């Protein structure tokens, strides 16, 4: 039986699945139901000076008929009285002592931070998460991503929190920066025990094309919001991996952004996350998705021979490299399995119009032919093919030793490149 329990910067939880700080962690009743469903931890909805929210607050991105494939919100931090939050945190922690109770905080002054860190810990927080990420509403007031975008401010506030706290401190980073690494390093310098990322991405989800008003519509207007949900996973994975492979960083990571199931979670863990947090998928489908997440992860660990989560964390990180380190002499060509092919020729259109014009219709059959002398192995056909494993990218034996761009530039004699393909020179 694999052990699903995990430790994120000293915050322990029976499984790596946490609810992110967001509407699902807004109240004791919700969090208690989440724990009953099996969630290993939660980050409580960000506490701060209570605010006012607008109506409506959420926008959905429909992609190919999938509602909420992307999601955005213009909601702010908690709008409930702080007293009620602390009372419910204490009550929930009492009922579920084995789960990770992380409290998210966003305040302005040093004194406020001191007071509310103490109250959170009194209420039973196992850890704190500093919300330096919210891209709307709060940053205009000098909080949220306004902090996360400024490494010096990030470091200063983090150091206050670490100074006041007796429990581990995670810094939640905003993705609304060009390079995440300096911001992770700032949190580290401030003394954080780990980071959480990503918060939402600055976005405008859509426009009501009949009313000429952006969405989500608040009366006759809207504003930019935070993008999240399945669509943001690739951005989140990249940011997580960028920190995980940074030699000077070295802090535990709680991975967030577009996690919808155990597969996504495994990817985040392999790229360096010790736990993962979920918001949108739970908002769309409810707490019960965690049953399959636990099941699926357990089965994955069993079949891959992992006994504990720590064995998986960061396993794919060494294989995440700079472009200049990739082997330019590794060559693949597309192969079509004629027995599986259904003859849709979607690959023909894709290759002709969007790639290298090397998949051609043939006389007498709907199965297309790959001109391997022209195929650059770009993968487009395999991506569009509706039949699983019908197109494979087969390595080509050409006898030229591996060579990266960096190696080639440094020493072209010892690291020659294979002949170029598909440039139609």
């Amino acid at each position, binding site marked *: 039986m694999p052990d699903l329990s995990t430790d994120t910067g000293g915050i322990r939880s029976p499984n790596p699945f946490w609810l992110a700080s967001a509407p699902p962690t807004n109240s004791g009743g919700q969090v208690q139901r989440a724990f009953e469903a099996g969630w290993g931890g939660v980050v409580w909805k960000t506490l701060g000076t209570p605010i006012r929210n607008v109506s409506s607050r959420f926008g959905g991105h429909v992609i190919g008929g999938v509602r909420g494939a992307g999601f955005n919100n213009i909601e702010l931090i908690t709008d409930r009285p702080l007293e009620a939050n602390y009372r419910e945190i204490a009550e929930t922690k009492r009922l579920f002592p084995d789960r990770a109770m992380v409290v998210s905080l966003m305040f302005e002054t040093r004194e406020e931070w001191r007071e509310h860190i103490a109250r959170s810990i009194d209420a039973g927080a196992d850890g704190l998460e500093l919300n330096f990420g919210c891209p709307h509403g709060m940053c205009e007031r000098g909080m949220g991503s306004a902090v996360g975008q400024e490494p010096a401010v990030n470091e200063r506030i983090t150091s206050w929190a670490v100074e006041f706290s007796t429990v581990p401190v995670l810094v939640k980073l905003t993705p609304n920066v060009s390079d995440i690494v300096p911001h992770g390093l700032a949190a580290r310098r401030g003394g954080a025990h780990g980071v959480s990322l990503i918060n939402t991405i600055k976005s405008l989800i859509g426009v009501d094309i009949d009313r000429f008003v952006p969405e989500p519509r608040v009366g006759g207007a809207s504003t930019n919001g935070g993008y999240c949900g399945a669509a943001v996973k690739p951005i989140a994975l990249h940011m997580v991996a960028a920190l995980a492979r940074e030699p000077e960083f070295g802090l535990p990571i709680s991975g967030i952004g577009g996690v919808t199931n155990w597969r996504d979670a495994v990817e985040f863990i392999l790229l360096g996350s010790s736990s993962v947090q979920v918001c949108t998928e739970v908002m769309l489908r409810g707490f019960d998705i965690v049953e399959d997440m636990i099941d699926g992860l357990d089965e994955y660990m069993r079949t891959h021979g992992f006994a504990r989560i720590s064995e998986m964390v960061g396993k794919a990180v060494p294989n995440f490299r700079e472009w200049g380190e990739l082997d330019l002499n590794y060559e693949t060509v597309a192969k079509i399995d004629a027995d599986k092919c259904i003859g849709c020729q*979607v690959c023909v*259109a894709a290759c002709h119009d969007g790639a290298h014009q090397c998949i051609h219709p043939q006389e007498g059959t*709907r199965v297309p032919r790959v001109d391997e002398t022209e195929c650059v192995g770009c993968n487009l056909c395999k991506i569009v093919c509706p039949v699983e494993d019908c197109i494979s990218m087969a390595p080509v034996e050409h006898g030229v030793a591996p060579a990266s761009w960096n190696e080639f530039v440094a020493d072209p004699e010892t690291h020659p490149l294979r002949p170029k393909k598909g440039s139609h020179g």
Partner: protein
Amino acid sequence: MSRPISESRSETAFGDFKLPLAPGEAVAEAERCLFCHDAPCIAACPTAIDIPQFIRKIATGNLHGSARTIFESNILGMSCARVCPVEVLCVGDCVYNHLDQPPIAIGRLQRHATDEAFAQGWTYFSAGPDSGRRVALIGGGPASLAAAHRLRRCGHACTIFEARPSLGGLNTTGVAPYKMRADRAADEIDWVLAIGGIEVRTGVRVGEAVSLSDLERDFDAVFVGVGLGADSPLGIPGEDLENVCGATAWIEQMKIGRVDLAGVERAVVVGGGNTAIDCVREALGLGIPRVIMAYRGDRARMSGYAHEWDAALAEGALAEWRAIPIAYEGSGRVRKVRCIRLDEARRPIAGSEFELEADLVLVAIGQSKLAAMLAGLEGIQVEGGRVAVDAEGFAGRTKWYAGGDCVNGGKEVVNAVAEGDRAAKAIDAMLRGAAKGSPHA
């Protein structure tokens, strides 16, 4: 131009066999389409509708454009969406048949878009600038309607001569009511005629009131779309007994008038084609408890579609295979059908006679051919009762073109539309002085 259709006609007993898609259902189904390149479904549609394109437009909420794509290739696209045997046409060739997933419901999606066009009153086409040319169309079925509409878009004046009191041919009077009822076909005809400039002369049988040479003299081109003729009889004793009916005549009566089924408990349908299966399903649907199809071959050899027969079986159809009637018996009204079994080579087996009780006999063994009416016109070949045409519908004599059942021997509405449209394009080219059959050449 469609004649008012009686509210109390028998066919109103039927509802839709294939239900319309709800809007959300249509979008979900449309999203599944792979947007195939050189799509095989298009090749399987006789009118070559750009199926992936019209489906994509449904997926994006562009129903107006979707219906335009359909009508551009098939002006009777609303009917075809309902009456096409899609299982052996477009849907039968959808690539999903090679995956373990159901093929795209192309017909139902087509219905979704075209029904919306009708509901919204969208029209897309206007007549071309007047060419000063006149085209006569003999017969007012799908072939001639499609041809006339295309010709009007090219600016040629059209006159349709139709023997019956109303237009539409078998699309109005023949197709099974659970696919489409006559009033729906009539709505479509009005919609097609709305392009203007199509003169309709119903109740005029060419060859009687108007002669072929009149047409040749008075018009710049003639399109022959006469379809098929009356139901063929078996030529056995008792054919004049009451309630021994030709299949298409009975269906026509059921669709636009009333059939009297008082006291009819048992029906025998003779034949094994699609008209026979339609009769079986219609008789069952009208409440006749026991309906037997008597066919001279076995199930594997019947020309009716397997999917249609399966539906008939599910509705309670019975069959006598390798059986052929030798006499209808009764006094005044038919009471029984004497049959004999046939062997593999379809020869009667001596001593194998048997009787089927029947209060109604529907004879669906084929329709006569009308092409013989053209026999006197030099240059026009009639082969096996069908008008011979080239790949463009030209019939071999200056000015003369043909299409539909009278050319293909009896296929589907969609074939008639395709052949009418094809001939119209050839007529237009000819009238512009470019091509075969030109009186100016």
